[in-house]
């Protein structure tokens, strides 16, 4: 059994419990052990860098320092956490001032920076370590051509992510391996507006609408996501946005791990599927 360290991030303990449940369910089936980083803290997301640069480095750096004390790659299911952690890692290697600033503050708290774990997104780990062949082998209930668009979001692929930043392929390939029908979608790595949904809703609503509208136009029955922030924006605000732009047709926003779980024979409740605000019952009828 391969062991990994797990950094769930705040969302997966709160608004994205469904993601957390499905991650643990699916990896359990795949006999992969996740060891949660002890005493982890918020990554600072996209908000802290606009308030305090040093603090924005310290928050993720502390998580890296804690993870460095144990073995195994650090697996991150959230795009925003993934990018925050990778960015700080990059900054500490590249910029002496940042590295020294972090070490200075750490020294006041008794933390040391002995090494840094390899930070990987959950999707990256599934594609690279488990592989599509193994995933296909585990499928007991194919998704029967359920029509989806895969929406990787922006922070999974840039600036330091994996996969093609303009036309990501991994999520498409994984969904095809589960038997889903992946539709062409030009906004795979467009931004969902992230936290602007609370500070500048006018702007973020436009961004989310553009994503949902293309998904509807190409005939998607659901939008598959890899990030709790994207999921929240596309799901929880969908009613408001549809009203504002006069759109009809609800689109369930589902985590890729939830579809993996279904294909591997797990039940909807094991995967937290009932927790979505836009119901996916109708879209999932096909596969029973």
């Amino acid at each position: 059994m391969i062991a990994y360290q797990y950094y769930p991030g705040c969302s997966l303990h709160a608004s994205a419990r469904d993601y957390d449940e499905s991650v643990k369910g699916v990896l359990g089936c795949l006999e992969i052990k996740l060891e949660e980083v002890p005493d982890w803290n918020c990554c600072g997301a996209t908000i802290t860098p606009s308030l305090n640069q040093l603090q924005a480095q310290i928050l993720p750096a502390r998580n890296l320092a804690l993870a460095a004390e144990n073995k195994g790659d650090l697996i991150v299911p959230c795009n925003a956490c993934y990018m925050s952690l990778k960015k700080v890692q990059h900054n500490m290697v590249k910029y002496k001032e940042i590295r020294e600033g972090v070490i200075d503050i750490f020294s006041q708290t008794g933390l040391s920076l002995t090494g840094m774990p390899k930070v990987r997104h959950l999707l990256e780990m599934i594609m690279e370590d488990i592989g599509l062949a193994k995933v296909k082998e585990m499928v007991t209930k194919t998704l029967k051509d359920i029509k989806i668009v895969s929406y990787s979001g922006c922070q999974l692929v840039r600036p330091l992510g994996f996969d093609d930043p303009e036309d990501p392929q991994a999520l498409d390939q994984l969904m095809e391996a589960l038997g889903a029908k992946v539709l062409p979608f030009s906004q795979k790595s467009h931004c969902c507006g992230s936290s602007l949904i609370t500070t500048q809703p006018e702007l973020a609503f436009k961004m989310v609408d553009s994503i949902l509208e293309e998904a509807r136009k190409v005939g998607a029955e659901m939008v598959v996501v890899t990030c709790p922030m994207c999921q929240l924006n596309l799901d929880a605000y969908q009613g408001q946005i549809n009203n504002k732009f006069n759109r009809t047709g609800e689109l369930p926003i589902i985590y890729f791990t939830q579809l993996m779980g279904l294909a591997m024979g797990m039940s909807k409740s094991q995967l937290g599927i009932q927790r979505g605000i836009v119901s996916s019952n109708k879209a999932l009828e096909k596969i029973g």
Partner: protein
Amino acid sequence: MSDHKIGVYVCHCGSNINGVVNCAKVTEEIGKLGEVVVAKDYKYMCSDPGQEMIKNDIREKGLDRVVVAACSPRMHEPTFRRALEGAGLNGYLLEMANIREHVSWVTKDKEEATKKALSLVKGAVKRVKLHEPIEEREVPVTNTTLVLGGGISGIQAALQVAEAGHKVYLIEQKQYIGGNMAKFDKTFPTLDCAACILTPKMVDVGQSPNIELYTSSEVIKVDGYVGNFTVTVREKPRYINHDKCTGCGDCASACIMKNRIPHEFDEGLSKRSAAYIPFPQAVPLKAVIDDENCLLLTRKKCTLACVKACGAKAINFNQHETIHEFKVGSIILATGFDLFDAKRSPQYGYGKYPNVINGLQFERMTNASGPTSGHITLADGTEPKSVAVIHCVGSRDENYNKYCSRVCCMSSVKFAHLVKDHCDAEVYEFYIDMRTFGKGYEEFYNRVQEEGVHFIRGKGAEVAQKDGRLVVKAEDTLLGQYREIPVDMVILNTALEPRVDAEKVAQTLGISRSGDGFFMESHIKLDPVTTTTDGIYLAGCCQSPKDIPDSVAQGSAAAAQSLAIIATGKVKISPISASIDSEQCAGCQICIGLCTYRAIKLNEETLRAEINEAVCKGCGTCAAGCPSGAIKVSHFNDDQLLAQIEGVLA
């Protein structure tokens, strides 16, 4: 112990060196060494008075060794060697200490810089004592030239050498000459028709008694050295007897694959047969049979309609490839460029939306003999009402190529003009910076601005499809606003890239490539035409992206280099070379693999390695790699190098 008389000359190079290194102090300190008879510093040692000073000291003080502490020896070693020779001393009794590139330009701390400069000069003094006089060698040259690549720069070079009365072998990979320029309709900034100015040159190539043209051919091997190359060329079969073919095109009309194969010359915008004439002005104007699509050649099954249609009986399916060997004095490389594949930037929808095209496709569209007979049309055959041109696709982009492709701003402006001229659509140019630097270029840009073209300063970020139209998204940095502009057609002006086989060509010819992948010149400013291999010259886009005027100029410059070799009748060969002590050589052949210049061969009888001194560049790689220490490099032997190290560390 020293019985040498050494003069040391420290150059200020204006403030280049003296601004950081205390030259007076270096001079004073070095003068204290016993064997240094004279030490002087001077503002510009390479100037006439500077050189005179050295010569006078040699004559008056009887110097027998000279150290010049100045710039890189790449620049002025020949200058100072000549100065020594002018005063009757062998040029190789000179040693240069590079205190500019290696010290003043890379060190900020003045004291550290002065210390380092002094160390380097001390090393040079220790080394120069062990220098020995060396005589330069001359070898006769073959007065023929090989030009590789039949685009505009290769044509220019070939014609100039031929007009001077010397034989040229022009080798072209495609079945015709003319290169990319032959695909254009109009050329900037004067809007001459490309065919009108290129076709006469192509015809001249075909008719010149001094040019032997080999199309469908590639160089597979190059042996020898400057003045005496042996080049092996593989000519692929065309399955057409050139002597009989009249270029009538009857075979193309008869071919059962007619209108089924995307036509490369039209950038895929039209379909051709398997037997075809590449384009109406092609030189040579002979049919070609495409062995990848011909049914007889691929499946051995065909009605042979082409053979029946050919009145001249020119089709011969029994042709085989031919290997030619040419003896030439110099080689001009003019292999051109590849266009960046816009599919690599999926955000622009190339290959996905039929009305997103690249620059060369637009060129074909506007060409009177092109796929639309010169009409600008959308995929449905109608005229566009608005067109966007996106600059810098694949250029000035960290993800693909950092460099500027140089021609795209001007060709984009030309595209805008042609759209206005042909169909009066609205044109939107999305640019990062406008770079219209050539003669008459800015004026042309002004003219097109006045024609009512919209110039939007901001790189096109994305092309999407909305309500049946294309939409270009961009940040307009002059307005400070995000814009979405609906258009009917998008032209992606893509980067000029090194050819896909550039590495293979570089290896075959033994030349280098720069970081951007283009072939590397000897000096980016002062020697942009020669390569680091003597006798191999560069012309056109294989060295860096260029427009037509610059490609032609470099073609002429390369021809001048070849003619200079022919005119002198002999070439000087650097006397610095490696030699093998055959007593010590174990025949392990490690050196043969290490030699970039292919100067080492195994003597099949003695089973010892042998160095061809004419080919050897004296780089020393073999000497460093030889496990038995059997190889020595003159002017860079172990004793000299150890003495230099000792001096630097003292």
